[in-house]
């Protein structure tokens, strides 16, 4: 029910550590923004500044039209779901969910009504009288969600809310969160370091690195057109293959001697002779006939995943690992040499020095 604006936000911790350099972000009403990035890149710091748990060192923070820099967390009309859920262990589920409302001075039965409604949505009605320790991980997660929902805040904040769950539950709760956020259409900021979670949940993704924003945009845009080598490498599993290359006319010379002709890529001419990093995702390396092959992969390890098969190997005469993902049917054996062709539409060129994207 509100936009959120971060304008020139900076954060320096009391020990002098600059955690956030200059953060600008305009979040639309009802949008789900996911902050993603490696550990220590400043995701939590950013989120906690929005929550008011951490003071901003510089810049302005707006929720709706109101500048909230100097408001207490409770006055910002936000709700937050913590990684460890932060449920009050001594209160029942119902009291946990109602605690914020109680502090707002709402009458008892209105609290009860709201709590019950939220519990119904989350299917935890039968747990309302339980204490947190009597709940499973997934149930606790739901209660933490419930506590956020029940207050009907302007903004939901999530700090890695799923990382304490096991893989199966994580997938399940991820879907649940998505469903709820869509249902309530509340603005949400979601922090995770898991790129799958980020991709699947985000309306827009903010990839952060070392206190700076690398790229912002819808997940598939970032996946398909990463602006930097960092983003390209961060998104996708298994990660993109990177190889040093040089541009020679309308072709790339990858790792010295593998030539890839790109007659259709007009821009190439302007970078003639330049050293670049060539990137291609494992799924864009397709097994092909000998004739069409760009590379010959000597397979060291085969990982049959059922639907797909991952081939780990190296190019003859090179040490660096290359990964190719093949759809499921064919069976490989160790030591196979597989001819592979790069999908011409899906290759990525990065400046070797700036690591910025070159091609469109």
């Amino acid at each position, binding site marked *: 029910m509100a936009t959120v604006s971060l304008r020139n936000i900076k954060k320096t911790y009391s020990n002098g550590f600059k955690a956030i350099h200059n953060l600008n972000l305009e979040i639309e009403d009802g949008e789900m923004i996911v902050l993603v990035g490696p550990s220590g890149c400043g995701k939590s710091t950013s989120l906690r500044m929005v*929550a*008011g748990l951490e003071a901003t060192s510089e810049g302005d923070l707006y929720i709706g039209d109101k500048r909230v820099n100097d408001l207490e967390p409770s006055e910002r009309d936000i709700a*937050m779901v913590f990684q460890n859920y932060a449920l*009050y*262990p001594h209160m029942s589920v119902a009291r946990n969910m109602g605690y*914020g409302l109680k502090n*707002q001075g709402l009458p008892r039965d209105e609290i009860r009504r709201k709590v019950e409604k939220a519990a119904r949505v989350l299917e935890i009605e039968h747990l309302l009288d339980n204490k947190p*320790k009597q709940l499973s991980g997934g149930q606790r997660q739901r209660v933490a969600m419930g*506590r956020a929902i029940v207050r009907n805040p302007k903004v939901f904040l999530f700090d890695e809310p799923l990382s304490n769950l096991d893989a199966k539950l994580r997938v399940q709760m991820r879907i649940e969160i998505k469903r709820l956020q869509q249902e309530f259409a509340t603005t949400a900021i979601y922090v995770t370091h898991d790129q799958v979670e980020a991709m699947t949940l985000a309306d827009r993704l903010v990839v952060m690195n070392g206190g700076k924003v690398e790229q912002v945009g819808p997940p598939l845009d970032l996946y398909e057109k990463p602006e930097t080598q960092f983003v390209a490498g961060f998104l996708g599993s298994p990660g993109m293959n990177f190889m040093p290359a040089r541009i020679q006319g309308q072709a790339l010379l990858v790792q010295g001697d593998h030539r890839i002709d790109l007659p259709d890529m007009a821009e190439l001419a302007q970078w003639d002779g330049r050293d670049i990093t060539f990137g291609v995702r494992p799924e864009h390396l397709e097994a092909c006939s000998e004739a069409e092959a760009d590379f010959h992969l000597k397979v060291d390890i085969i990982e049959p995943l059922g639907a797909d098969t991952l081939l780990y190997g190296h190019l003859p005469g090179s040490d660096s690992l290359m990964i190719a993902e093949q759809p499921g049917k064919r069976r490989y054996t160790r030591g196979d040499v597989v001819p592979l062709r790069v999908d011409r539409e899906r290759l990525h060129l990065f400046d070797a020095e700036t690591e910025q994207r070159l091609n469109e």
Partner: protein
Amino acid sequence: MHDNVVFNNKVLPYFLLAPQLVITLVFFIWPAGQALYQSFLIEDAFGFSREFVWLDNFIYLFSDDEYWNSIRVTFVFSGLVAFSGMAVALLLAAMADRVIKGATTYKTLLIWPYAVAPVVAAVIWWLMFNPSIGILAFLSWTLGHQWNHYVNANEAMAVVVIASAWKQISYNFIFFLAGMQAIPRSLIEAAAIDGSGPFKRFWQIVFPLLSPIAFFLLVVNVVYAFFETFGVIHATTLGGPGNATRTLVYKVYEDGFVGLDMGSSAAQSVILMILVITLTIIQFKFIERKVQY
């Protein structure tokens, strides 16, 4: 389950246990049995004559106002020691919990009294309250009150309570502080987002979460006040004035070693053992419960 990690050795464990078992048997089990046996006897001081009197010693005790007084004194004393020691410690811990600068210095300056023997603490406080020359008695005199713990029962009680509680503050403080620091930050943050201010947070979130520790400390402090403060009383009030500070343990000692009334002393030992066992069981029940927490 530890069921797995077992070394298959038949005799070794007995060797390992032997020293502890021998000492336990000789110095704990045997005397306890002895106490039980003696509690059924009346003996003269030198042990020349003894008569088996069944439960007479117990009957005598429980029909003696003095014994009941001693029970009352013990409970009042323990309650006051536990309560005052814990209250001060909680206050200090709450203050120290969120202090960032100088936290370790504060801690260091607060924990050393633990190392002081109760009897030593008692002697120093006794001096400070000395009606003729004590600084605190003097302070009380300037406030218009004539302090005299030789005569005034409440004042004598106050001195022994203060001396005993003083030493326990460190202990309680350490536990409360550890307890507070174990509370996840996010819980406090969640409460802040939920709109509760610092005082409300303390009473509604922090304090309830400390309650298991508080309960544990209550038991520990009561046990301490029951049994470990003998020196405090022995070095100062000797149970007086009147019988105002004669705790159960002091009475066991007095009747046994001063009065040389072995039967009564043994009977009191037996009663005390039952009491300690009860307290310990309570404590263990609670620890078991807390483990699941």
